[in-house]
């Protein structure tokens, strides 16, 4: 348990899902921000699936989506949700576990 998970997660793959509701400015901004961050930090190790809840409303239930936009990190586990337009890069990196964050990474899920 006290092992630093970061070491283990390094070679893993980031499976990301971005939930949006139509082409709103917030959604577009979120997608642009996400793309930028991923290119910078996760080049070649990620997929982004964009789900438009206006088209697939039933999918909201599965990932317990409330806020829009929400980025769900399906992999690596544990599942984490990042809400907002992802404009705060620092917090996105913490959310994606790309930045060591003392309080977060040690917490067991």
């Amino acid at each position, binding site marked *: 348990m006290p092992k630093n998970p970061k070491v283990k997660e390094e070679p893993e793959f980031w499976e990301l899902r971005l939930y949006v509701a139509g082409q709103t400015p917030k959604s577009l901004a979120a997608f642009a921000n996400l793309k930028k961050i991923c290119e910078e930090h996760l080049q070649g190790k990620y997929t982004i699936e964009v789900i438009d809840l*206006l088209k697939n409303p039933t999918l909201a239930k599965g990932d317990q989506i409330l806020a829009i936009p929400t980025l769900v990190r399906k992999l690596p586990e544990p599942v984490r949700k990042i809400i907002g337009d992802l404009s705060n890069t620092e917090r996105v990196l913490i959310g994606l576990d790309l930045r060591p964050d003392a309080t977060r990474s040690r917490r067991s899920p």
Partner: protein
Amino acid sequence: MAKEKAATHQAQLQKCPTGIIGLDELTQGGLPRGRPTLVTGSAGSGKTLLAMEFLVKGATVYNEPGVFMAFEETADDLAKNVASLGFDLDSLTNNKKLAIDYVYIERSEIEETGEYDLEGLFIRLGHAIDSIHAKRVAIDTIEVLFGGLPNDAILRAELRRLFRWLKDKGVTAIITGERGENSLTRYGLEEYVADCVILLDHRIVDQISTRRLRIVKYRGSAHGTNEYPFLIDEEGLSVLPVTSVGLNYDVPKERISTGITRLDTMFDGKGFYKGSSILVSGTAGTGKSTLAAHFAEAACRKNRRCLYFAFEESPQQITRNMASVGIDLKPCLQKKLLMIRSMRPTFYGLEMHLLEMIKLIHAFDPGVVVMDPITNLITVGLPVDVKSMLTRVVDYLKSRQITTFFTSLTSPDGSLELTDIGVSSLMDAWIVLRDIEAEGERNRGLSIVKSRGMAHSNQVREYRLTAKGFYLEDVYLGPQGVLTGAARAAREAEEAQASAERADEIQRQKRQIERKRAITDAQVAALRAGYEAEAEELKKKIAEMEAREKAAALQRAKIASMRKADKEVDHAEKS
């Protein structure tokens, strides 16, 4: 004019019946249709249940499907929790009458990175509503969001939008909220939901808990403003508003016997009115229960069902004790015409008692109900609560035209006509039993204090509890009022003596008359004899005189013819 009236009627707020017993009466039809209603209360006050019952009743009774958005319990937990109330959520869900969406939110799993809104929640709710064409929505408890999402400003803006959106959707919604320290809800939801606010409360007074409901606000509608007790039992929620029945029931003219002929006579010869409420008050040991048993037994003999609530004695004890005064309740019990329900008042709170009673009455459908004694209920609640409960009992029973017989124990030091609960104003007839202490004896007297709608006796009557039951004695009045006990017995003997004397006197007078008549008859006979003798004499004289006159006439005629002075014929004509 008529048109105007119709228009205002049209403009009136449409109501959405909740199907919850009592609540619809209280709100005069239900919750505001197409608008959100806030239900707030502390933990365990029944908010979730109220919301769920609203949906279940909507789905099963009013054919209005509903969506339950749960923030606190999963769909499985919810189904299990309400199964004990007879709600089968699974089958409702399968039949597309109900949709449950469990919203899970955990702050530690969420990272906030800039602007967002709650469109996801809207989409989920909207999708659930559209998929089953829901007319009702319950959101329980949306305040969880405040704990789950860090940005209050966004949340508040989104909540405002949510309630507007619900209105636009035209669904009738219940939003639950946790009671705050100094506000209705912890996060001030009442700011957003302004149409109707219902407050639930769970209070413990003297170790007895009572749930209460109050409608804090109902825009555009009249409503009951008091706190109303409510219950949660295996049939769900029931609110018991005093006003739920109201003073508006049919009054039968039919009469029902008191079970004692002489007492019937005191009540205008026929006894109580059917469907009236009767109070018998008296100090300990005055025979209140005996009177009640007489009444019950008489009702059973007339094939009326009787429900006897005993707060002091067990059924066995009652039957035994009543047998000792010649009232045999066993056949009534065997024929299932009589049901004795014994309960200790302290077993439950007042409201539970009320519900117990009402449910039993519903099930047994009695013609008469006896409650013996109501004073014992005081041990459970405050006098004002007891009175309010009894008001509701009386209203309920009257609306069902059930004749009710209450007994009440009065304390010997207080005024005899003061009932502890002050319920006498609720009663149609009131009999007071009292001890009359005089000349070293303690005897019992009965009087009718009031009897609405009939001429009744004003006499205080002595009664005894005999082996044949309640016996009303003849009335003897003395200088100090009604004579009782030995004084009455003495007076009875006196009366008997006087009566015998009077009979003798009558006989003597009759004989006197006989004698007088005999004397008179004799006198009459003597007079008649005298008269007859005299008449004989006179008749003889008359005959003599006539004979003499005839002779004289002949003589005169002879002389005249001898003198040839006159014609014999002329003379004859003349005479």
